[in-house]
């Protein structure tokens, strides 16, 4: 068994048995459901808004080369510098090179999952740069030395008391159970870091082709400070974040907020239009944008799953996923958790090592219904399963399903097998058989009837 699968099974087993933690997550999401439904009801027609949002992403993704070129030429006209990165390694090298060129001493970062995807903090720290997360949740996770639990709510699993203890330990502050006070502690600590930093690193929610602007959405104002105060602004973005028109944001921004966090709009939505221009009093001196492929073009080349590039990383699919809610975000071992993570991680990191995430689903489809840009999420899990069993079938699976199909193609054998199965069921339930043993550990089976349906039907209808 691959390491990633073994670790997943171990962590998922432990977490699924942790009733307290599951109840805590469930309660946190309960508030989200209420707010989300309230905000969805304010749309004249949520389903048509989903169509529009999906179409906005579709039209950009399906013309990606042209739309990207248009974006880049407008971004450069605004005075920004574009760097192309084929993969995570190239993106890290580019960012480290910029840091070296500008002789950076301190770096501040706002929330950006793409930087998590390339493990940027590790690379920066190894090269000797101090880097601080400025998003409160990410800041907490950084202090905990833990990856984000949820790609929108990074520390949703951490209780207030634990945050207070963490701050006492690392920042020397007095214990408190007031969320406002905890926020103020982080705020006081971070404020000077923005001022001291040479480089601010952000992500991008959308790249607007027609204006060459970058759109960043946040609730805390930390991304604005990260982008505006340091001398150098570096943004890292996947190439799929581009949209054609500024007008597309009129549907995408509110839907991102509502689907992701149950908000009408996120508190701060900012369009960044290049570095400080002559006569302007603020903004960075240099504005770099790293546009990264890292398997996006591989997904683009797959006509079945291309729509997974529509993802606006709102997290709605995680919030409704019974798997996510019961095993927690860390068990996935991925940058992107939940259904979208299970769909795209095999493309990012390899199908053979990561197809177990697609298998670990009841295919309930709650994710697909929740997705604001209509990604066919749960059916993509099926497609990953198909691709995985083509690419690296297991002997057990082949034997089981060929055997099963051999039986169901022969009604007499199916009926005979069924009779034997029913007669021996009391015994079978006690044996450590594959599948049956796992079922019987926590659940009963109905008592086997003496006669099958087909037997009873025959007797009734002769």
């Amino acid at each position, binding site marked *: 068994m691959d390491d990633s699968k073994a670790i997943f099974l171990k962590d998922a087993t432990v977490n699924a048995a942790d009733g307290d933690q599951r109840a805590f997550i469930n309660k946190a999401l309960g508030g989200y459901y209420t707010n989300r439904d309230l905000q969805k009801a304010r749309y004249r027609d949520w389903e048509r808004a989903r169509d529009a949002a999906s179409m906005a992403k579709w039209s950009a993704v399906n013309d990606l080369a042209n739309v990207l070129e248009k974006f880049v030429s407008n971004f450069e006209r605004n005075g920004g510098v574009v760097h192309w990165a084929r993969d995570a390694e190239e993106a890290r090298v580019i960012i480290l090179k910029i840091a070296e060129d500008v002789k950076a001493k301190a770096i501040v970062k706002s929330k950006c999952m793409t930087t998590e995807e390339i493990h940027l903090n590790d690379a920066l720290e190894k090269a000797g740069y101090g880097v601080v997360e400025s998003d409160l949740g990410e800041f907490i996770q950084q202090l905990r030395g833990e990856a984000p639990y949820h790609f929108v709510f990074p520390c949703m699993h951490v209780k207030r008391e634990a945050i207070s203890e963490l701050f006492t330990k690392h920042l020397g502050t007095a214990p408190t159970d007031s969320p406002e006070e905890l926020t103020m502690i982080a705020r006081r600590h971070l404020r000077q870091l923005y001022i001291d930093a040479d480089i601010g690193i952000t992500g991008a929610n959308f790249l607007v082709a027609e204006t060459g602007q970058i759109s960043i959405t946040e609730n805390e104002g930390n991304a604005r400070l990260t982008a505006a105060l340091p001398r150098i602004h570096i943004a890292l973005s996947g190439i799929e974040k581009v949209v054609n028109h500024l007008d597309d944001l009129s549907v995408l921004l509110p839907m991102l907020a509502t689907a992701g966090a149950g908000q009408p709009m996120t508190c701060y939505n900012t369009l960044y239009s290049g570095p400080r221009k002559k006569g302007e009093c603020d903004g960075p001196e240099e504005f770099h944008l790293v546009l990264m492929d890292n398997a996006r073009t591989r997904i683009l080349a797959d006509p079945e799953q291309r729509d997974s590039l529509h993802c606006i990383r709102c997290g709605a699919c995680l919030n409704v996923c019974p798997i996510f809610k019961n095993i927690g975000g860390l068990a996935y071992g991925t940058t992107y958790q939940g259904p979208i993570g299970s769909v795209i991680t095999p493309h990012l990191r390899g199908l053979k090592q990561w197809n177990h995430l697609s298998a670990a689903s009841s295919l309930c489809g709650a994710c697909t219904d929740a997705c604001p840009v209509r990604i066919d999420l749960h059916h993509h899990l099926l497609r990953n399963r198909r691709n995985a*069993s083509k690419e690296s079938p297991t002997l057990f699976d082949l034997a089981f399903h060929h055997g099963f199909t051999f039986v169901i193609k022969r009604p007499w054998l199916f009926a005979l097998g069924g009779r034997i199965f029913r007669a021996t069921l009391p015994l079978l339930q006690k044996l450590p058989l594959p599948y049956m043993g*796992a079922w019987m550990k926590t659940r009963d089976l109905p008592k086997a*009837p003496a006669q099958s349906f087909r037997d009873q*039907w025959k007797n009734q209808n002769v």
Partner: protein
Amino acid sequence: MRVSLFVPCFVDQLTPKVGLATAKVLKRLGHDVEFRSAQTCCGQPSFNSGQWDVAREGAIRALSVFRGADVVVGPSGSCVAMMRNFYPELLKGTPHAAEADDLAARTFEFSEFLVKKLGVTDVGAKFAKKVTYHDGCHAMRELRLKEEPRQLLRAVRGLEFIEADEGETCCGFGGLFSAKFPMISTAMAQVKGGALARTGADYVVSSDPSCLLQIGGWLSREGKPILPLHIAEVLANDA
């Protein structure tokens, strides 16, 4: 109407009363009911396990079994979704594609057939019990059925209907998922089964016998005083 029964393989072997009840209701409404004994399993276990090549063999076989049937009615949202939605995907681009589409259009889930095809909500049943309902995910999200079973249950004489919390939450069955990832599946059963038990209903009713296997199996192991029952079994009780 001449109705060809589609009896899921595990109903055939483990809960035949569901198939008999389905036939009884359809006959009571005046329809001719046939059971083609060449049918076995729709192939969904292999399809969901990624073994599409062997699942295709099962699908092609099912096409021939139900060839010429006016309508095919099955008491399972999941197995009907396999025929309706996934056979066409599985057989896309093969010589069987057209027949798969044709079968999909003739195949109905039991409550869907009664309400949407026949326009019947009162089948003349009586069942003086407290009942809650579990929506199978395939019925709810693949077939878009939600109101149909409720309309049928509300028309049953003496029946008291109670909605449960976690109304749209999966029970955690998911076919072989329940045995491949038993810890996750059981956690899901706890969430769903717990909410159903809290209603204080006598029975949890569903149009999906596979969900009832999971929910009923967990409720029984936990000793909860609520029993699984298929909707056809409720509707089969004469007034």
